[in-house]
């Protein structure tokens, strides 16, 4: 679970017409870094001190991404379009992921996992599946935590090869499995392997 990253610019726009060119150019950077616009130019009140008149809040996957977006060539091309028409106080901050006022669990979507134990009956044929599954896993944000690897069955029994994949959420983990893309890849392992596969929601309670 990584804390998110945020852009918090406060702006005074002196020339709204001139500012429009910036508003047209900036989205290229925002799209590329997949930020989410949480607030922009809505009603506001400076309940203490003072604020500039236009307030924006953008959310990024994490702090590094928020910084990378700001420093990207795309955004650095847009920035000079805003400077002559406005004054800004602009801060990029890391989000909070600790305990919330109502106690743990600490928020943030739980991740999702695939746990698979596989007996490969036709290693040569299975290779085609191993090459084809990467694209759907990538599309749904899957990441291998375990993929084969040395192992020891310390209790009971499981099939011969084990894989653990992490997804951004339980929903993403399920959606990947059900997608036509993955099912097309899965067809390649038909008759070449037997497996037990579970999709399960991750844990985000207090640790030991």
């Amino acid at each position, binding site marked *: 679970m990584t804390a998110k990253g945020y852009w918090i610019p406060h702006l005074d726009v002196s020339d709204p017409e001139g500012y429009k060119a910036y508003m047209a150019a900036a989205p290229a950077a925002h799209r590329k870094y997949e930020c989410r616009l949480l607030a922009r130019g809505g009603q506001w009140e400076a309940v203490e001190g003072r604020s500039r008149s236009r307030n924006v809040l953008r959310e990024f996957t994490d702090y590094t991404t928020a910084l990378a977006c700001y420093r990207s060539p795309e955004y650095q091309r847009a920035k000079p379009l805003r400077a002559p028409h406005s004054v800004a106080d602009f801060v990029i901050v890391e989000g909070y992921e600790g305990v919330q006022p109502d106690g743990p669990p600490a928020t943030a979507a739980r991740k999702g996992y695939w746990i698979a134990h596989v007996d490969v009956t036709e290693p040569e044929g299975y290779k085609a599946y191993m090459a084809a599954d990467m694209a759907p896993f990538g599309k749904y944000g899957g990441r291998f935590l375990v993929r084969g690897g040395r192992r020891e069955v310390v*209790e009971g029994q499981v099939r011969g090869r084990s894989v653990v994949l992490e997804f951004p959420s339980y929903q993403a983990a399920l959606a990947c499995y059900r997608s036509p893309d993955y099912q097309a890849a899965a067809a390649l392992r038909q008759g070449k392997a037997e*497996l037990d596969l579970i999709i399960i929601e991750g844990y985000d309670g207090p640790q030991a």
Partner: protein
Amino acid sequence: MAKGYWVAHVDVNNPDGYRAYMEANGEVFRKWGAKFVVRAGRSEVVEGALRSRHVVMEFKDYATALACYRSPEYQQVAALRRPHSSADIIVIEGYDGAQP
């Protein structure tokens, strides 16, 4: 370095008895730096068959994951769970190759 994992599938036949194990294992896992990645969350067995409770624990590496399992202090708490459950457990090395 690749991390190490425990992957456990458990059938609990006496939940009350099993609770004593769950309360006792925290201290051992803390000592070995283990982190719960999965602990009996919502799940769907989409292919094949597995026991009903699923746990994945992460350790800093494979050697630590194995050493924790073999430690006298873990084996002492494991004795609290065995009469109340059946388990399939593997200790496995993590992956640090190219990602999708």
